[in-house]
């Protein structure tokens, strides 16, 4: 089975020490991506539940930049240590409680602490699952300390308890860590050297719910964002509590009245300032590595850069989606930003240009109530192994199911991202032609109190293999005011049919004969070929037969069959109990499947040769899929609510594979989160066959199931015994590590690598004042007091700037 489509943004990612790799928590695994190519290199598999934290062990000195160890924590209650270059599991610490977050403060100031004490402490945010009777449920989430070296929790030490699992944040120097807790902020000082028990804590108060906190890299400054969009910056927190030798946890000191502007409730901080720009909850808060700037972001999709001293701000607008995490890398010119639409952008730093995007599958878009019953907006490209997904922001994302990455995006409606709650423009239907070269989308602009509504049908053509679609034709109000219920393509690709709730359907044709010719395709246009209606009934679904000679249109409970070329009504089949929502011809057999929803949901199979009902089931069908040249089809059925918990654990749907002639399913699989799911057959063409194998052989056909959260699985529906489909990753995809060029940054990218400088060498062994051929190579390699005078330095330094290129080539 090929699985994919997980969320990349559930937890903050982490950069490797050389900033060439990015570690993302993707469900039960940690995926390692190359920052140079944006493709996945490898994954760390072993956790059995959602991975919640990943921490890269920093390199103790710049020479050990290649060090590739990381700690991960997961909801399965284990903490694991990995070598992610190999990748290999090194050791496992079992805690036995789901871990929501983990920090290891002593990693931040490397080497010394570990050597002296031999034990490494982690602080974890866990859910206390045992002894549920004793404690009220609200306080089962605890902050605990864990000795990783001895693989156990430290005694019964509970640092704090919160009603919700909270994210632990550690300061960059590793001397503080904190959590938010409703309107409060708890900060612990990490004792140094770490004793087993005593840890001091302070609490800072605020009047609103705090959503995110961040520590300053060098000073005692903590920033917090709240749900109303304010950012609070406390300076000099914990001066009294933490500086006192043996302060007791939670002790409040009553001081002489002192001027502490903005600080509430006698909290232990020097001052507190508030900045307010965001209109909604602050989701991202992070200090820059030099501590001069504070980055903040939230629902608006705007990254705000605050100058810490002045409070001046700069904006990087229109990222297009709410921001979730912002992480900077050891390379000062690279950082990453995670967006809610499952995209991770690698940013080039001061300019904030996007270098690469790691594109995960986008979440389904949300809809107003009236449009809940719409199709799921997922169209499969059977030949290329792609799926077109309707997503937020009026986009169609093309996602490669085999490679598990986003290919491209099509902006159906050219509007800027609005952070508002109201969705007024909806993409209602997506259809792809059989060869995947033509796409059709339908969108609705909702009216404001009855004025200004608009239905729009668009046809897109793609020139080449990379699925860059360009707009070919726009049809405004194709069915007057009626909304479009379905769009479907003729198997040849140069005819399409759209059916409307307004009571008619239209057949569209592409006006040039040879759609294969690319140049002609670019200026092809679609025109209406025929209009039809049946007793003014709503047309709810449409499908072309496999040879394209019959067009089936569902008129509420009836099925009408038309000749699409001559626009003649051939026959009427009827009738079902409830309006039909989808229609599909079963491959090359003479059967037609119809599904209807509602209180008397039904799956019915109609025989075209007899023009009558063959068989039917009372099933609520969420999705239908039929392969082009087979006589079987697959249906995703939702289970009735009552049977949910008893028979299937959390599984609310079944995938049924039928042969069209027989009412007994040939295979059944149960599925999770079937609501809003989709099914599709994928053909395995020779290029795909190389990478997909089932027990060494290549299957002809794969069935793809995508659940409501857009996680998907590909499997061979016809192999009975072993259903393992394995993917052999193409080597070229697995991140060609660009040595040299891409790896260099900062000083090295301009002047080339400096010669390795040895700390132990005596500074006076070589006074760099004599003019060598390349004075700039040695000019700075000495202690500062041994540097030659400025007049000598200046000319050599300027010369080095002028001779940049020859120096870089070497």
């Amino acid at each position, binding site marked *: 089975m090929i699985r994919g489509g997980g969320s990349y943004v559930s937890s903050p990612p982490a950069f490797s020490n050389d900033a060439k790799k990015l570690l993302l928590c993707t469900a039960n695994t940690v995926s390692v991506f190359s920052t140079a190519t944006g493709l996945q290199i490898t994954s760390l598999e072993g956790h059995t539940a959602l991975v919640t934290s990943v921490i890269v062990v920093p390199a103790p000195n710049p020479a050990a930049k290649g060090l590739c160890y990381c700690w991960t924590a997961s909801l399965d209650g284990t903490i694991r240590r990995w070598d992610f270059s190999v990748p290999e599991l090194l050791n496992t610490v079992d805690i036995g409680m789901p871990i929501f977050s983990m920090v290891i403060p002593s990693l931040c100031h490397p080497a010394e602490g570990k050597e002296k004490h031999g034990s490494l402490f982690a602080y974890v945010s866990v859910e206390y699952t045992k002894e549920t009777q004793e404690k009220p449920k609200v306080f089962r989430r605890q902050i605990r300390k864990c000795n990783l070296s001895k693989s156990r929790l430290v005694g019964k030490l509970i640092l704090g308890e919160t009603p919700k699992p909270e994210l632990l944040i550690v300061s960059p120097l590793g001397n503080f860590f904190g959590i938010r807790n409703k309107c409060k902020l708890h900060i612990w000082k990490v004792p140094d050297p770490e004793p087993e028990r005593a840890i001091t804590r302070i609490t800072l108060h605020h009047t609103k719910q705090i959503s995110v906190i961040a520590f300053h890299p060098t000073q005692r400054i903590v920033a917090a964002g709240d749900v109303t969009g304010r950012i609070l910056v406390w300076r000099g927190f914990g001066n009294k509590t933490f500086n006192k030798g043996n302060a007791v946890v939670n002790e409040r000191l009553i001081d002489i009245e002192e001027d502490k502007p903005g600080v509430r409730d006698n909290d232990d901080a020097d001052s507190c300032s508030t900045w307010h720009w965001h209109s909604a909850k602050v989701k991202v808060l992070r200090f820059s590595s030099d501590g001069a700037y504070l980055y903040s972001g939230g629902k608006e999709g705007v990254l705000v850069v605050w100058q810490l001293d002045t409070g001046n701000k700069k904006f990087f607008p229109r990222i297009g989606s709410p921001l979730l995490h912002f992480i900077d890398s050891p390379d000062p010119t690279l950082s990453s930003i995670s967006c809610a639409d499952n995209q991770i952008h690698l940013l*080039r730093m001061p300019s904030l240009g996007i270098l690469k995007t790691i594109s995960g599958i986008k979440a389904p878009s949300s809809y107003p109530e009236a449009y809940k019953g719409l199709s799921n907006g997922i169209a499969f490209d059977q030949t290329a192994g792609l799926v077109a997904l309707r997503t937020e922001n009026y986009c169609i994302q093309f996602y490669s199911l085999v490679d598990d990455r986003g290919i491209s995006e099509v902006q159906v409606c050219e509007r800027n991202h609005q952070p508002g709650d109201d969705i007024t423009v909806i993409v209602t239907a997506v259809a792809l032609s059989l060869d995947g070269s033509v796409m059709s989308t339908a969108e609705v602009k909702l009216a404001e109190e009855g004025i200004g509504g608009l239905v729009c049908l668009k046809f897109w053509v793609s020139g080449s293999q990379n699925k860059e679609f360009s707009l070919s034709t726009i049809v405004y109000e194709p069915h007057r005011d009626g909304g479009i219920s379905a769009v479907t393509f003729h198997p040849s690709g140069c005819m399409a049919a759209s059916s409307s709730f307004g009571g008619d359907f239209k057949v569209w044709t592409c006006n040039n004969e040879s759609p294969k010719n690319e140049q002609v395709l670019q200026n092809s246009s679609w025109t209406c070929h025929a209009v039809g209606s049946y007793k003014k009934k709503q047309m709810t679904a449409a499908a072309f037969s496999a040879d394209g000679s019959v067009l089936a249109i569902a008129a509420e409970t009836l099925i009408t069959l038309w000749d699409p070329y001559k626009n003649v009504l051939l026959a009427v089949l009827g009738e079902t109990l409830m309006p039909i929502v989808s229609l599909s011809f079963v491959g090359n057999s003479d059967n037609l499947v119809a599904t209807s929803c509602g209180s008397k949901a039904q799956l019915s199979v109609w025989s075209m040769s007899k023009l009558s009902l063959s068989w039917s089931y009372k099933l609520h069908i969420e999705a239908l899929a039929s392969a082009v040249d087979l006589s079987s089809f697959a249906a995703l059925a939702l289970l009735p609510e009552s049977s949910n918990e008893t028979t299937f654990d959390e599984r609310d749907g079944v995938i049924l594979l039928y042969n069209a002639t027989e009412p007994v399913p040939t295979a059944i699989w149960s599925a999770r989160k079937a609501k809003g799911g989709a099914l599709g057959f994928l053909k395995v063409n020779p290029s795909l066959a190389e990478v997909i194998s089932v027990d060494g052989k290549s299957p002809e056909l794969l069935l793809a199931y995508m659940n409501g959260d857009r996680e998907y699985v590909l499997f061979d529906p016809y192999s009975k015994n072993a259903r393992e489909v394995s993917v052999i990753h193409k080597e070229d995809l697995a991140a060609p590590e660009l040595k040299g060029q891409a790896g260099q940054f900062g000083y090295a990218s301009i002047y080339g690598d400096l010669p390795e400088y040895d700390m132990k060498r005596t500074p006076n062994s070589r006074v760099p004042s004599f003019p060598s051929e390349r004075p700039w190579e040695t000019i700075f390699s000495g202690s500062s007091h041994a540097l030659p005078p400025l007049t000598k330095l200046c000319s050599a330094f300027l010369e080095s700037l002028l001779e940049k290129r020859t120096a870089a080539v070497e």
Partner: protein
Amino acid sequence: MAEIRPEQQTTTISKTFLIKPKLKPKPRTQSQTPESKYWSSFKSTQIPNLISSISSIAFSPSPPHLFAAAHSTTVSLYSPLSLSEGDVSPSSNISSFTDVVSSLSFRLDGLLLAASDLSGIVQVFDVKTRKRLRRLRSHTRPVRFVKYPVLDKLHLLSGGDDAIVKFWDVAGESVVLDLFGHKDYVRCGDCSPVSADMFITGSYDHTVKVWDVRVENSRSVLEVNHGKPVEDVIYLPSGGLIATAGGNSVKIWDLIAGGRMVYAMESHNKTVTSICVGRVGEETLGSEAAEDRILSVGLDGYMKVFDYGRMKTTHSMRFPAPLMSVGFSPDCRTRVIGTANGIIFAGRRKGKENVESGGGNVLGFESIAGPERRVLKPTYFRYFYRGQSEKPAEGDFLVMRSKKVKLAEHDKLLKEFKHKDALVAVLSRKNPENVVAVMEELVARKMLLKCVSNLDVEELGLLLMFLQKHATMPRYSSLLMGLAQKVIEMRADDIRSSDALKGQIRNLKRSIEEEIRIQHSLQEIQGIISPLLRIAGRR
């Protein structure tokens, strides 16, 4: 070798979509073919106030292609270069004629000009000095045409009302051949572009005769009958085809096939008075790119362009007077049309000026040295811009500035969520498409009605004026009709209290009533037509 390390490609983080109006459907046929675009690219200049009808126009074959126009007893020479600068006065005039000048012809090197007049004399002038060099007297009646052969400098061809075509030796002022055969006035003629000995003449006896000076008995070699008095005749550039004009038609004949008519073009409504050969396409692109056309002008005031390759009229152009003569310059840059009431329409197309043979040489000027380059001093403004127009060298590292997106005022205001201001800004811009686009965007933001309720009286007047103008346009009506109703409902009190707004409402009412009337009559028409269509469909 230096290696250039390109800056890593980054894409900007922000995407900006401007508010765009809905697309209009494209017409099935293009409104302007490339060819009609070409013909309209001739920028027309009028040369007014000439004495009478322009009987003949001739272009000099040598650059800069001066042209001569005959009107009354004067021949005016014009330079196309000065025309393109807007100077409509002739560069020189020749007026040593006793009677009306009927025809003009340049010698192939452009140095001599032959002119015939109705007194029966053919005169030869030096173009530069305007001195008369020869007087050829032999015609007893008015001479109607004179022509220098295309490949011969020494002879002339002329014909006139005495029905005789004469072949002259210019230097000796003597007639070489008298060619008899026409039975009526000889009106026109042309010399073959491929042979120095062949020529054609057309006469009011409806015939065009092909002559060859090498034929002994001085009889015509071939004769074609146009069917109407022949007004003009030309050789087409291949030398095998000729075009004749007479009556309302232009006919094309194939001489090599023995005088077979190839095509008759009858797109003029009145007599075609003159035809000439024009070319489409750049001369510099070579002969493949350029195609020949026949330009014909007639008394109906039309100039028609005829593609004799495809046998199709490709362009037509109307002028406000009967047209008498047409000329097209060999460099395809100038097109001149003379009218019956003394106006010349000269069209000139923009293009590269041919430098080496341009104005300077012909007029005898040496090229003037350009102004000396001054040394830049800090007192000059340009000093501060020095070096900024420098082109990058091959090895230079290019830092690209990201392109700035141009935002209209309403785009900017919408970006700042100043919805009402955006609506007012676009309303004052008078572009209905943009206004509707902004309104649609406001609907998508659910802000349109709020904007309407926030408008003050003056801005409301602006909106009402817009609604009155455009509410009945079918493209916008679906939105604007609904909006107009809402506006009146929401702002009834404001409208009642202001006289100006009341006036607007009255206008709006009137235009709606007008629209209703139109709809009624359209429905009536539909009612008449639809049964007819039914009947037609049944058959």
